[in-house]
C-alpha cells in the first residue's frame, strides 16, 4: 500500500517538516524539533495536521441504540453538540479502537477514529450495524482536520472568528462556524493535555486555514507541530495510544481507562467479558514508571522483577516537560503498585526503574 498524503502535504514541506510514514500516511514527525514543538504546545501553542484521522457518520432512528451497542461509554448521556471519548471493544473485551463521538442530534453522530484503524473500524462498524436502522458513511477522505493546541490557542483562534469561544467548554463542539472565512466544525478537544481546539474542514480549504491560523498565531509563539511531539505530549498527559496501551489483546480495564466503560448502561460489545475482568481484577495493568538508573525505555523492552519477565514497555521516552525518562508498561497486576521497583531490559542490560502514578503531567488548574 502506498502511503497517502494529507491535503497539507505541500504545506508541511514548505514549513520544513521532516516527513515519515505513520498509519499509512506521510506526515511530519517534526519541523523545528520535537523538544521545541513540545515546549511550544505546553507554554504557547502548536498547530498540528491530523487529517489522517478517520471520520464515520452514523445517522438514522437507531443511531443511539446502535452506538450504545458498539462502544463502551454511555452515549445516551451526551447532549447535542457534546463530544464523548470512548473505547470500542470486541466481545472478548479486547479493544477495536478508541474514538471520539460527536453528537449533532439524536439521529446524527460523527465518529472520529485512529488513522491506522480506519479501514478495520469501518468494516467492524458496518458488520455490527446489520440489525439497526442506521445509515453509515466513511467520510474520511472528505474531511481534513487541524489541531490548534496550547494555552494560547484560545487567544489565537479568537482573532479568526466572531464566535464566542469562551462559551465552548471542554469536550463540546459547534457543527458549523466560520474561522478565517472557512466553514468548520470546531471542538474544544485535543490529545496533548493542554487547552485547544480541533477544526474539521473540507480538504480543499485546509491549506488556507492552516496559513490563516499560522499568520494569526506566529506573533504569540505559535509554531507547526509534528507527530513526534504529539506522541510525547499525549504520553505525558497519560492518554493511551492504540497499538501501544490499547490493542486487540489489551482491554480498556487493563489500560486503566475503566472510567470510560459503563457496565450499567445496558448491553454492549464486550460487556460480559469486561464485567468479568473488572470483578476478578485485571491480570495485567498499564502502569507508569520512571527510570531511576540511566537509560531510556522504549516500546517492547521487557520489564523484569527479580530477573523474571513480568511484562513489557508500551511507550517509553524522554519526557520533555518533566525532564525525565519515563514510560508506560503492561505488567502483571501484582507489581502495579506505585513505588514498586522494576527493571527495564535495555540492550541486554537490566536498568532500574520505579512504578509511579499517572498521568505524568497535568496542566495547571485542571483536576
Amino acid at each position, binding site marked *: 500500500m502506498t502511503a497517502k498524503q494529507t491535503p497539507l502535504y505541500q504545506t508541511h514541506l514548505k514549513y520544513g517538516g*521532516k516527513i515519515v510514514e505513520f498509519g499509512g500516511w506521510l506526515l511530519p*514527525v*517534526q519541523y523545528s*524539533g*520535537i*523538544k521545541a514543538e513540545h515546549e511550544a504546545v505546553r507554554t504557547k501553542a502548536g498547530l498540528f495536521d491530523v487529517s489522517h484521522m478517520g471520520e464515520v457518520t452514523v445517522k438514522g432512528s437507531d443511531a443511539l441504540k446502535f452506538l450504545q451497542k458498539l462502544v463502551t461509554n454511555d452515549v445516551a448521556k451526551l447532549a447535542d453538540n457534546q463530544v464523548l471519548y470512548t473505547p470500542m471493544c470486541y466481545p472478548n473485551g479486547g479493544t477495536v479502537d478508541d474514538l471520539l463521538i460527536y453528537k449533532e442530534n439524536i439521529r446524527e453522530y460523527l465518529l472520529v477514529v485512529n488513522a491506522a484503524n480506519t479501514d478495520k473500524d469501518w468494516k467492524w462498524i458496518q458488520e455490527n450495524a446489520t440489525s439497526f436502522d442506521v445509515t453509515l458513511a466513511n467520510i474520511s477522505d472528505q474531511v481534513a482536520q487541524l489541531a490548534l493546541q496550547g494555552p494560547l490557542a484560545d487567544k489565537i483562534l479568537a482573532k479568526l472568528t466572531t464566535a464566542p469561544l469562551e462559551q465552548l467548554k471542554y469536550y463540546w463542539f459547534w457543527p458549523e462556524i466560520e474561522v478565517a472565512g472557512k466553514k468548520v466544525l470546531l471542538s474544544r478537544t485535543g490529545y496533548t493535555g493542554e487547552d485547544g481546539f480541533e477544526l474539521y474542514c473540507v480538504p480543499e480549504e485546509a491549506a488556507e486555514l492552516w496559513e490563516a491560523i499560522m499568520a494569526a498565531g506566529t506573533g504569540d509563539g505559535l509554531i507547526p507541530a509534528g507527530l*513526534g511531539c504529539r*506522541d*510525547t505530549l499525549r504520553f505525558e498527559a497519560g492518554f493511551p495510544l492504540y497499538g501501544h496501551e490499547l490493542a486487540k489483546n489489551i482491554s480498556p480495564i487493563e489500560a486503566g481507562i475503566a472510567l470510560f466503560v459503563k457496565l450499567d448502561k445496558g448491553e454492549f460489545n464486550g460487556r460480559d467479558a469486561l464485567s468479568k475482568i473488572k470483578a476478578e481484577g485485571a491480570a495485567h495493568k498499564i502502569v507508569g514508571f520512571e527510570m531511576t538508573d*540511566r*537509560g*531510556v525505555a*522504549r516500546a517492547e523492552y521487557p520489564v523484569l522483577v527479580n530477573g523474571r519477565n513480568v511484562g513489557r514497555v508500551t511507550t517509553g*521516552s*524522554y519526557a*520533555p516537560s518533566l525532564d525525565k*525518562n519515563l514510560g508506560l508498561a503492561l505488567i502483571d497486576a501484582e507489581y502495579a503498585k506505585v513505588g514498586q521497583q522494576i527493571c527495564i531490559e535495555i*540492550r541486554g542490560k537490566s536498568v532500574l526503574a520505579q512504578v509511579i502514578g499517572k498521568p505524568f503531567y497535568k496542566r495547571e488548574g485542571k483536576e
Partner: protein
Amino acid sequence: MNIVQGLKYSNGHEWVRVEGNQATIGVTDFAQSQLGDVVFVELPEDDIIVRAGDGFSVIESVKAVSDIYAPVSGKIVKVNQELVNEPEIVNQDPYEAGWIVAIELTDISELDDLMDADAYERFVAEGGH
C-alpha cells in the same frame, strides 16, 4: 549542513579527527540533524578494545535509537563524560564539544577506507546510505 574540512568520515556518519596515533570520534552534523533532539548517550568504558564496525555507543533522540559504530580499530582511551548530563551537546556542537570517544589506533591504514570531506559531502547529497 556543516562538513568540516580535514576530518575523515565514515558511511555511518561518524567523523574522525586524527592527531598522531589518536583518533577522536563523533557524529556529523548531518547525523545529529537526522536524529533530532539527542536525549541520551550510552558511552563505552575506557580501555576497551574496539574493531572497526563494532557498535561502541548508542545515541538516543526523543524518537530514535541509533548505534554508533567504530570507524577505526583501537583502544578507547578517552570518553566524553560531559555527554552523560548534557547529551544535547551532540546537537549543538557535533564536531567539537560533542565528540564521543578517542581511540588509540591499532592500524593507521584503516583511515584510508574513510572519506574525506568532499567525498562525504557527495555521499550525503546522494542520500547518505
